[in-house]
């Protein structure tokens, strides 16, 4: 009898909780509006919106490489299936033309579309909820003054049960907290601006913060490094794997032009982030550099001495642009003789060339891809090279997917690791190569 009452009570509680959740999760539609006229927005506001949309990298998920700006259709692979960026041009039927400013702000902060449907957290409302009202207004003005394009994105391909949007509501209940960016009085204005942009609009953590099994960023590990589209997004905290520590100057150069002389070239998903960032103001990019330099912190003494060793191993005299690397250590060639042969023919022409660029390639001893605990990024680069955006100038490296086998790439990567990093040898490199080739 007692057991029955307990069971009944529990069932009642569960039913009540479920009912409460459904009531909470049900969000009303916001009435459609006539698409606003571009004349409704001041040019200054639209300009500001363009600069902010650049920092938010709206185009990254909403502009297809062969499609119209902001017309959607970009596939975003996630561990749970593919999600497609939507059309955010002001087309009233297939875009957001019928969205009021209030509906847009609700989507940005709460992840709910105009019709009241829960959006998946691939849309980083867990960052955009930190945005100031004025910035949301500016981005709204920018988007509403784009060319309206009639285009419908392909339907999302998510695994059951995630294909039901109610799951996104449950996710929010667990992980989405209302947030506003509060400036810190003990920090400089650029630091506070940078914190606001990095944590909010820039949503750097969407790639650079590890995610839990339900795909939520782990708040205790902010910017501690994550993965995106098969690439390692290196940590941006004190554990940064960069051989030479990042500074405000080097971060600014990297974000502004896509490379820094003491580090690498923006590759993988970061290439388009940097490209889309171009319309952002210098002062905003510098503020982000100030903030990220502070999350990385000053290098520890051991790290400083390792950096001295690296600098000492570089030839003297030339400009930093022309630094090349020391001759091969015998042990590296002995450990990976096939890799050494491939390196000599395939890589050394650029990477040990002491000329200035474009003839002299990046010194590998400075590359984060070589220093990471995982070989993934280096293998991605060996397979597919580094490519500037079409018809744009930029650093390039050919890829070798067509000519080197998985085993040969693994041998090359092992050689590069042992010659240009003091990190432990990578294991199972060939499996990683095969995985990347097979889209894993």
């Amino acid at each position, binding site marked *: 009898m007692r057991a029955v009452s307990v069971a009944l009570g529990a069932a009642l509680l569960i039913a009540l909780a479920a009912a409460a959740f459904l009531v909470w999760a049900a969000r009303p539609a916001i009435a459609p509006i006539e698409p606003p006229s571009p004349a409704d927005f001041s040019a200054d506001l639209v300009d500001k919106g363009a600069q902010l949309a650049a920092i938010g990298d709206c185009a990254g998920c909403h502009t297809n490489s062969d499609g119209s700006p902001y017309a959607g259709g970009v596939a975003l692979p996630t561990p749970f299936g593919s999600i497609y960026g939507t059309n955010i041009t002001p087309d009233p039927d297939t875009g957001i033309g019928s969205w009021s400013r209030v509906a847009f702000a609700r989507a940005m902060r709460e992840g709910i579309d105009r019709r009241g449907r829960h959006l998946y957290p691939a849309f980083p409302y867990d960052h955009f909820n930190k945005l100031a009202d004025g910035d949301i207004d500016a981005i709204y003005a920018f988007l509403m003054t784009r060319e309206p394009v009639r285009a419908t994105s392909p339907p999302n391909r998510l695994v059951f049960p995630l294909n039901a949007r109610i799951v996104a509501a449950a996710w929010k209940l667990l992980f989405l907290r209302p947030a506003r960016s509060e400036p810190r009085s003990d920090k400089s204005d650029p630091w506070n601006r940078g914190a606001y942009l990095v944590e909010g609009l820039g949503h750097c953590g969407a790639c650079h913060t590890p995610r839990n099994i339900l795909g939520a960023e782990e708040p205790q590990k902010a910017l501690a490094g994550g993965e995106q589209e098969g690439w390692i997004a290196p940590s941006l905290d004190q554990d940064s794997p960069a051989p030479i520590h990042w500074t405000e100057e080097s971060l600014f150069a990297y974000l502004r032009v896509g490379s820094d002389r003491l580090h690498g070239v923006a590759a993988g998903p970061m290439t388009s982030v940097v490209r889309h960032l171009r319309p952002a103001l210098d002062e905003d990019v510098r503020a982000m550099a100030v903030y990220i330099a502070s999350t990385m912190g000053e290098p520890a003494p051991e790290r400083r001495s390792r950096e001295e060793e690296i600098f000492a191993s570089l030839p003297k005299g030339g400009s930093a642009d022309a630094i090349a690397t020391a001759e091969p250590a015998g042990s590296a060639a002995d450990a990976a003789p*096939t890799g*050494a*042969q*491939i390196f*000599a*023919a*395939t890589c050394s*022409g*650029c990477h040990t*060339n002491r000329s200035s660029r*474009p*003839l002299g390639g990046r010194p590998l001893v400075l590359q984060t891809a070589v220093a990471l605990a995982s070989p993934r990024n280096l293998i991605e680069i060996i397979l597919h090279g580094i490519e500037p955006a*079409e018809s744009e100038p930029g650093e*390039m*490296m*050919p890829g*070798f997917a*067509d*000519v*080197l*086998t998985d085993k*040969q790439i693994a041998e090359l990567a092992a050689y590069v690791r042992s010659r240009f990093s003091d990190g432990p040898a990578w294991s199972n490199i060939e499996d990683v190569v095969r995985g990347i080739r097979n889209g894993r």
Partner: protein
Amino acid sequence: MLTLTVNGRPHRVDADPATPLLYVLRNDLGLNGAKFGCGLGQCGACTVMVDGHAVFACLVPISVLPGRDVMTIEGLGSEEDPSPLQHAFVEEQAAQCGYCIAGMIMRAQALLEHNPSPSEEEIRRHMSPNLCRCGTHMRILRAIKRASQGTRFADADSEKRVVR
């Protein structure tokens, strides 16, 4: 000693395994079609095919090639008996100084073998690693287009390599 298969024929090569294929082709095998341009994989003058893929011969060590099928411009056709693609390059007068052309043809051949009727966009994207300093790109694109349109009938009455 390594054995390389070039244009369907085995060749015993006595060279350091780290030697780039281009040097062996030109210096040891007397196949001078592929050119040395930059030596850095940035210009494409050295392009040949390995197992049907266009590759920079200046960056490929011979050590990775035993058991693979290397094809150079000499294997495609000759002055007397040009392949359909070579013929199209002649018809369109696509060469100015000619230095890039062997590489251009081999890269285009790799495209047509995988995709016999590529779009303009696909041709442009595929050919983008190869540079022509004379500026004959428009003629090169036309030649590839011409060859791709000719493929269907060229296939039937020719023994020459069009599509494997």
